[in-house]
């Protein structure tokens, strides 16, 4: 029986012969069920209709879409909350909570059958049922990921979960935000059973029968209505331990986890109505705050990136540039970057050809690739069976002729122009006419390398970052003659490797290095003024960067940074100079972590995970040779000096049309530089500060040179009172 008169209802209700009703959701036109306004309206109507009809024996709540219970609330709705007052948001939360509460206030028991993704509001809906059954299917996952958007569940989820599984586990689950599978959900007590998908309905009906027999739903409702206050010593312990963990993980920059802790602990001791009110109040406070606004925006940027074909106007694909699906990828060069790119292919199910002229490099590279691709994080070693299976998908050759059947070749040989040009010409000789050729380079202009090829239209840059397994950004670099089809293919392929591709125009340093270098450079300038290196890094971390600039230098390698710096110096020497300190360090053998010493000394036995032990006294001696006059520098000024030059460079990038959309800059700095997501990216941060404030902060720094001077766009935005990013377009 249709629940509502509307043709397009997202809810259908079916009566089974034993009087059990099955209420299922299907949101049309979506790959995943999401809780839209229509879903809430239809659910209310369906419950009204059930109330008017003969009382059912029980209610099964499920999804009509395979593999998707509910992926959560519609994020577009969250974005729309931006202009809503906290009071109105609280009322919206209370309305949703009230609607869900009808499920466990009825005279009959209800069971949610969870097959597929069940996240956020979807899990809150399931929690509102008396019982839950999850399926053992691999696609079944249950989670409350709201914390990743700077929020907490707002439809009673924290209240119900704490009462169901205990406040401590509820805090861990909600503040962690990571989903679990059906079996883990059962162990946590979130679901009452976990069965194969085809047995879910019969299990739900049996559960209804045995609960009716024992009045189990009545007992559970009584239990869930009561507070679950912890013993005082348990509460104090939980609060102290979790607060410390949260502070360690968030650096105090993300308010949601601590709010979740406070809200759940307070709600656990309150009655249902008061606990719900506390949750709504917390949701309203978080959702109207800056951090959540930025995190929701960054989430939407990611969604937009996944839709963006990389050519055309940004949101619409241009009709003549269809991405050719890559089936036979190949990588040339088995060094660190080539191996990382190759491993990423294996992990994503590709069979791959790997060519390196040096047999020894090839052998070493292949072993490393298999180990990385077969890495079992839980066991902390490569899974031998998986490694063996993957070995069959990795074909290695010293001769370029092995590339003949490839439809995409990613060249990743030594970062030297002559070597790269020779390799590219060789590749073009053996591949077919439609093969896309990409170069992984950080410093070589695409235009220059393209002249080594007879058909430059099929050629582009695909700049991966080190380490490839962790760094999600790929700069897809468009040379002057690169075709739309080539770009579309490279972009689509990067996405199949779970990367975030950003298309940039060919220019020195492309996008990321150009924005990174001013930040790195300024740290060395301050060192020369006599500032303590650890203080510089601490201030950068306090801003939210994952590491300070001097630690980052050591991570990148001083030699690598030196060459990258030379390219930018050559192009933008008026403001991105190459510092004399870097070659001095290189000459003294301090190349960074890889040699055990850079700006800091490292314990070599601890490998890549070594913490910077202490500043190297020798470095301070080297720096002293290039000392600059000391300046009065507060922590605020220090942070401004590191980051405002990045803002200025970003405005130049915008003006030069290096990116197709300013939002790509924010996405790139978050993915590649670890720019704090809670600030929304470098331009979003600039907009938060406001152009006028940036001008005020730059003024006392003007004597440092062009690198601190306002750009035309900054002055224009300040004058016009506008923004760097027009939010209307996002």
């Amino acid at each position, binding site marked *: 029986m249709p629940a509502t008169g509307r043709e397009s209802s997202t809810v259908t209700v079916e009566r089974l012969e034993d009087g059990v009703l099955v209420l299922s959701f299907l949101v049309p036109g979506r790959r995943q069920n999401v809780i839209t306004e229509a879903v809430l309206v239809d659910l209310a109507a369906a419950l009204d209709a059930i109330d008017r009809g003969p009382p059912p024996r029980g209610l099964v709540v499920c999804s009509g879409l395979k593999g998707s219970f509910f992926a959560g609330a519609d994020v577009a709705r969250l974005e729309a909350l931006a202009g809503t007052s906290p009071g109105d948001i609280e009322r919206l939360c209370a309305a949703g909570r009230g609607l869900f509460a009808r499920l466990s206030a009825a005279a009959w028991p209800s069971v949610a059958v969870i097959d597929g993704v069940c996240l956020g509001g979807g899990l809150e809906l399931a929690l509102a049922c008396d019982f839950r059954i999850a399926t053992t299917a691999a696609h079944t996952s249950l989670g409350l990921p709201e914390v990743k958007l700077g929020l907490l569940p707002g439809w009673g989820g924290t209240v119900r979960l704490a009462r169901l599984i205990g406040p401590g586990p509820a805090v861990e689950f909600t503040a962690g935000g990571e989903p679990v599978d059906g*079996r883990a959900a059962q*162990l946590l007590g979130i679901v*009452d059973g976990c*069965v*194969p998908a085809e*047995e879910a309905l019969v299990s739900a009906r*049996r*559960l209804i029968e*045995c609960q009716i027999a024992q009045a189990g739903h009545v007992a559970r409702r009584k239990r869930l209505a009561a507070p679950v206050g912890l*013993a005082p010593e348990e509460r104090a312990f939980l609060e102290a331990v979790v607060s410390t963990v949260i502070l360690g993980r968030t650096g105090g920059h993300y308010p949601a986890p601590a709010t979740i802790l406070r809200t759940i602990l307070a709600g656990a001791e309150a009655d249902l109505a008061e606990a719900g009110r506390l949750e709504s109040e917390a949701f309203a406070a978080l959702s109207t705050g800056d951090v959540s606004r930025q995190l929701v925006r960054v989430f939407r940027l990611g969604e937009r990136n996944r839709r963006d074909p990389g050519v055309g106007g940004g949101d619409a694909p241009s009709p003549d540039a269809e991405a050719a699906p890559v089936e036979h990828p190949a990588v040339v060069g088995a060094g660190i970057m080539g191996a990382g790119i190759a491993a990423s292919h294996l992990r994503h199910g590709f069979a791959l050809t790997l060519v390196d002229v040096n047999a020894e490099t090839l052998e070493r590279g292949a072993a490393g690739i298999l180990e990385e691709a077969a890495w079992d994080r839980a066991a902390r070693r490569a899974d031998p069976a998986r490694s063996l299976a993957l070995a069959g998908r990795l074909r290695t050759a010293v001769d370029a002729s092995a590339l003949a059947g490839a439809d995409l070749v990613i060249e990743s040989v030594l970062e030297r122009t002559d070597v790269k040009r020779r390799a590219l010409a060789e590749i073009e000789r053996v591949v077919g006419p439609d093969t896309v050729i990409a170069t992984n380079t950080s410093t070589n202009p695409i235009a220059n390398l393209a002249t080594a090829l007879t058909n430059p239209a099929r050629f582009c840059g695909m700049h991966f970052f080190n380490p490839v397994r962790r760094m999600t950004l790929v700069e897809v670099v468009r040379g002057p003659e690169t075709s739309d089809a080539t770009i579309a293919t490279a972009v689509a392929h990067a996405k199949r490797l779970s990367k975030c591709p950003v298309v940039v125009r060919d220019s020195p340093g492309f996008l990321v290095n150009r924005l990174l270098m001013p930040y790195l450079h300024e740290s060395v300038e301050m060192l020369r003024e006599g500032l303590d290196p650890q203080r510089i890094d601490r201030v950068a971390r306090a801003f939210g960067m994952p590491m300070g600039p001097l630690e980052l230098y050591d991570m990148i390698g001083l030699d690598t940074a030196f060459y990258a710096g030379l390219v930018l110096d050559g192009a933008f020497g008026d403001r991105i100079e190459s510092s004399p300190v870097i070659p001095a360090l290189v000459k003294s053998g301090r190349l960074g972590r890889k040699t055990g010493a850079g700006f800091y000394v490292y314990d070599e036995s601890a490998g890549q995970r070594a913490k910077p032990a202490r500043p190297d006294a020798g470095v301070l001696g080297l720096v002293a040779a290039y000392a600059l006059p000391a300046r009065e520098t507060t922590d605020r000024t220090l942070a401004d000096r590191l980051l405002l030059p990045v803002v200025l460079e970003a405005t130049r990038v915008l003006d030069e049309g290096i990116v197709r959309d300013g939002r790509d800059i924010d996405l790139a700095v978050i993915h590649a530089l670890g720019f704090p997501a809670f600030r929304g990216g470098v331009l979003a941060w600039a907009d938060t500060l406001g152009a006028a404030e940036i001008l005020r902060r730059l003024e006392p720094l003007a004597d440092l040179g062009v690198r601190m001077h306002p750009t035309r766009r900054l002055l224009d935005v300040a004058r016009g009172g506008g923004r760097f990013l027009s939010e209307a377009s996002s």
Partner: protein
Amino acid sequence: MKAAPRTPDTNPVVVACCRTAIGRAHADRGLFRHVRGDELAAAVLTAAVDLSGVDPATIDDVILGATQQRGEQGGNVARTAALLAGLPFSVAGATVNRLCGSGLEALARAAQAIVAQEERVLIAGGVEHMLHLPMDSAIDIHPRALARSSRGMLSMGLTAEQLAAEHRIPRRAQESYALESHRRAAAAADAGLFDDEIVAVLGHDESGALVEATRDQSIRGDTSLEAMAALEPVFLPRLGTVTAATSAPVSDGAAALVVMQETEARRQGLVPLARIVASAVAGVAPAAMGTGPVAATRKLLARTGLTAADIDLVELNEAFAAQAIHCIDALGLDAARVNVRGGSLAIGHPLGASGARIATTLLHALVADGKRLGLAAMCIGLGQGIAVLFERIES
């Protein structure tokens, strides 16, 4: 009776007892293949408290038997199960191991604490999930511990073969015994005689759907001597007499009994089912582990001044048919009074839980049949026996 007279202050009484259905330890078909051992233990703790009506705040200790104390039964499962069951923090917990005798061991310890006038309210029981924690895994017996015995004694089945050979118990007699065990168990189950002792736990049926587990999974009312005769000997291929049909099935389950000082039970207005009269443990040669109940029972009878004829009902754990037959003969028991509701050959033998399981079944049978004295006895690997004597209290 010779035992020292007890007063209500030193008299340990059982006020309630229950168990889960016993599931087959089968990876694809076991009722509890997706339920953990600690969950089974928590289920019987919760149910025992509910059934008895005892004030949870007055419980001093939980003592559970478990032979594999690791993984989901590790970290002191008596304590973790008590936490899982929501018992107050003030309830202590200890896990004990006397291998197959662990469940009775827990019960005897609880009784002793009351007799000694230390604790007053305890839950005793046991748990074993033999599918998740196989009986022979993670065990490393010192080779020199075999100096006075032999490696073969580590195989319980071989010790049963030895008993059968030594006491001339033919395969057919073992099978007839096992058939009777299934017949009695099936009849008891069909008549609902286990309904009061079995606590329903959600398990999974063979297709994986949720199902309330209320019937012991290994009982086969439809088995026959012909079917049994077709089986191969398990422990001594071709030559042996002991088969899967005449060995207790590996099983998953839990059981618990609320044991209290009689004075405290009366104070809380609870009705005692029976008192624990005495208990005894005994060691025997490891290779003759199946005779353990004989030694333990004789000790207990001597202690209490009773004879086998005085005992109304006996629950003798059936590790193997040969072993049970021998004990009945050696003790001169009346087979009609032994395992009146079938034994572990049919019901299953979740090692650490079985002692509490047979005590639970015994107490329900004493009450239902209006009998007075009941004996629970078990054989124990590496050569031991344990016996506990109950006297029903007329309410």
